[in-house]
């Protein structure tokens, strides 16, 4: 790549054009030749609308944790939809389009745009040589919509697809060939990935490879490349890397951390976690249940936790709300459960297919009573793996609910990651009763660290009663001032113990010592902040960031030390109220500058960069 730190590519089509499949092959190939990649596709929200589908990916030499606002290369498999994407294309971006397409949009235009100019739509032209030819109109051909600095390359995708595979559905493959030729992407890797993807199930592999070659050769022979973009093979080995999204990482972590029961109810964007586990967990001796609702899902998980088994459920906002009563129950009954909440736009059913970070309040505060719980929020796909695994460890060790807050962006964006193996000691963390304890077993025994030894059901002499009622050490329901006070203290003491023993100091990135601007961030937005800080540091700016993964409990001393180093502190996040900034404000005197968006898409690194630069100038 000669021109920029990273390039963003979009392949845009309608749902039948198989643009997502093309995108998958493309990022796999870019990853194989040494690039860091991150992809985040957009597809029709309602299955009913067979609408716009966009494979969106960013690739670069350095690690990237966020998306860019601008696209550099736009591949159009459907001009009408791609025209809408032009607004995101950088002023010197590239457009690749089908310059011999059959007009499929002609009737549609007449139907759903009502008023159409009779000049722009007509029956087509008839010539002796070519017969009846349908013609696209100006509104629906992308060729007339580019900015003056953009590069337009036409490839006869439809014709080449017909020629090689006898059908128009391979336009997505032809265009991959063209992309390879235009941007110097090594051909062999591409073809390898192509055949691997189609391979076994498709007898027509040869004709598909031919489609790719046609697209490649057409560009080599006919297109004059003027744009500056190119990928060449990098001399880095990414063999140990796997392409996966956050959902997959969460599911993998559950398997590797020894989760033995998953219960869930379908909900976007968390459903995939259940689907992966349905296929994989039974192979590892675990069970998966699809329940009738989320109350039942967390009920199942609670039962499994009580039985001494690691268990998890995953959901999104509306389902998370249904689980609320059980969160309190798990606190009261001291039952370990792991709840993954993949946040989407809210409130209520909200924006099922759009990302947001607005469940933080609910994760921290949801429920009645004084309800301590551990809340962790991974910032990348890799951390989705690490911290889901960690959640099992913490839940079991501290006998309480641990909430893993991710979001739709993390759930669905695919990246190439190398997962570190989990340390063995984290695989079993029950505090089991000693022989001494078993003489007179107290399930809710008051201890210094707040954690009571836990007998597991069926253990001899380990008789216990747990419930959602306040209790004394024996587990007998009691409602007196003394018991409620010491028991509440005990439950909060566990959080303190966890803080001292198991919560790492938040990572500080950027300039050491005093800085003009500090940025504190959480969740997937921290990825954008990391990318932005990285690039402003290269410009020599005085900036540092603190990345918080454990949101409750907070490492107050370390955070205070960071605040003391900063002239100003910015807290960007993807919600309207500044839920995280509010949370910090409870704990620190600092005035936090906020940067809030409800953008329905992830915050991009360039938006953060612009905000950092603005604040530095002020």
């Amino acid at each position, binding site marked *: 790549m000669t021109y920029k730190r990273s390039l963003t590519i979009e392949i845009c089509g309608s749902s039948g054009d198989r643009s997502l499949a093309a995108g998958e092959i493309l990022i796999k190939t870019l990853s194989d030749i040494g690039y860091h990649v991150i992809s985040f596709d957009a597809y029709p929200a309602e299955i009913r609308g067979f609408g716009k589908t966009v494979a969106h990916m960013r690739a670069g030499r350095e690690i990237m944790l966020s998306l860019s606002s601008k696209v550099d290369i736009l591949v159009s498999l459907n001009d009408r939809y791609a025209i809408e994407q032009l607004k995101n294309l950088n002023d010197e971006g590239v457009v690749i389009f089908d310059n011999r397409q059959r007009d499929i949009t002609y009737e549609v235009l007449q139907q759903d745009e009502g008023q159409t100019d009779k000049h722009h739509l007509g029956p087509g032209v008839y010539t002796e040589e070519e017969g009846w030819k349908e013609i696209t109109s100006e509104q629906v051909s992308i060729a007339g919509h580019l900015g003056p600095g953009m590069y337009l390359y036409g490839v006869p995708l439809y014709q080449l697809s017909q020629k090689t595979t006898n059908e128009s559905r391979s336009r997505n493959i032809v265009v991959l060939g063209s992309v390879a030729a235009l941007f110097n992407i090594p051909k062999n890797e591409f073809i390898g990935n192509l055949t691997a993807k189609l391979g076994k199930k498709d007898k027509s592999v040869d004709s598909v490879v031919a489609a790719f070659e046609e697209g490649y050769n057409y560009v080599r022979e006919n297109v004059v490349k003027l744009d500056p973009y190119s990928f060449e093979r990098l001399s880095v080995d990414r063999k140990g890397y796997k392409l996966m999204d956050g959902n997959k990482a969460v599911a993998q972590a559950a398997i590797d951390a020894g989760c033995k029961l998953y219960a869930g109810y379908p909900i976007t964007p968390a459903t995939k976690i259940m689907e992966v586990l349905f296929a994989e967990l039974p192979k590892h001796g675990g069970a998966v249940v699809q329940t009738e*609702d989320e109350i039942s899902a967390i009920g199942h998980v609670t039962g499994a936790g009580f039985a001494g088994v690691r268990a998890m459920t995953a959901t999104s906002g509306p389902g998370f709300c249904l689980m609320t009563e059980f969160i309190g129950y798990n606190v009261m009954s001291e039952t370990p459960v792991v709840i993954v909440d993949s946040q989407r736009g809210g409130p209520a*059913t909200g924006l099922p297919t759009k990302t947001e970070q607005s469940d933080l309040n609910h994760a921290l505060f949801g429920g009645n009573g004084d309800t301590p719980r551990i809340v962790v929020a991974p910032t990348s796909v890799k951390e989705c793996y690490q911290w889901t695994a960690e959640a099992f460890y913490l839940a079991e060790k501290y006998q309480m609910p641990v909430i893993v807050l991710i979001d739709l962006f993390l759930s669905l964006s695919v990246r190439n990651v190398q997962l570190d193996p989990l340390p063995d000691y984290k695989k079993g963390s029950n505090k089991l009763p000693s022989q001494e304890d078993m003489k007179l077993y107290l399930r809710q025994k008051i201890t210094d660290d707040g954690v009571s030894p836990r007998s597991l059901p069926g253990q001899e002499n380990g008789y216990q009663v747990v419930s959602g009622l306040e209790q004394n050490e024996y587990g007998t329901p009691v409602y007196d001032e003394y018991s409620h006070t010491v028991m509440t203290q005990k439950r909060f003491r566990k959080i303190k113990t966890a803080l001292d023993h198991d919560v790492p100091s938040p990572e500080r990135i950027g300039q050491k010592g005093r800085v003009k601007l500090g940025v504190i961030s959480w969740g997937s937005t921290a990825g954008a902040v990391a990318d932005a800080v990285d690039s402003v540091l290269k410009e020599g700016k005085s900036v540092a960031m603190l990345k918080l993964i454990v949101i409750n409990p907070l490492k107050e001393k370390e955070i205070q030390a960071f605040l003391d180093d900063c002239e100003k502190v910015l807290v960007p996040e993807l919600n309207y109220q500044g839920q995280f900034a509010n949370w910090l404000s409870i704990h620190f005197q600092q005035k936090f500058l906020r940067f809030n968006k409800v953008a329905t898409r992830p915050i991009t690194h360039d938006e953060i960069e612009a905000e950092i630069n603005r604040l530095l100038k002020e």
Partner: protein
Amino acid sequence: MHTLHGRALPVASGAKLARPELTVLALVGDGDGLGIGAGHLPHTIRRNPDITCVLFDNAIYGLTKGQTSPMTPQHQITRSHPMGNPDPKMNPVLLALSYGAGYVARGFAGAPDEMQRLFEEGIRHKGFSFIHIMSPCVTFDKVNYLYDNLRSWVRLLPAGYDSTNLDRAFEIARGVELFTGLIYSKPSLEQGAR
């Protein structure tokens, strides 16, 4: 009004209580009415508000793209059960009868005239009416509720069928044949809705 997933019945009941002069329908899905919202069904039937509940059953979770629903047949492969659904499906008509619903019918999306008739009767029925509609999901169900399949499965109720006979209704509901039409309707004297 689109309520929350599973919560149409309580919301519809509330609307009817607040404005009795309104005609109120609660349209629910199979996942919706028999899964997440199933707990509301017996109690709505017990309270017998004058509303009509239509359960659009496509035997799949359509909106979330094809997971098993409470109406998915046992062993069917779905997105969430790649090895096949381990559990048998539910029987909504039998459920509604057992809970004591005063109007219970079944229709098929491929027979719109009959559906229309059932809707009209159901709305006219004083008290809670329950209509189970089998309605293919053409996107995510490629094996079970196909129009062709359903067309060959459904049967019209036998000639002279007496829809006020509860015992017959139970027989019909328990049987393996998929009868469509008005399966049970409480004689009007006993209707007395709130």
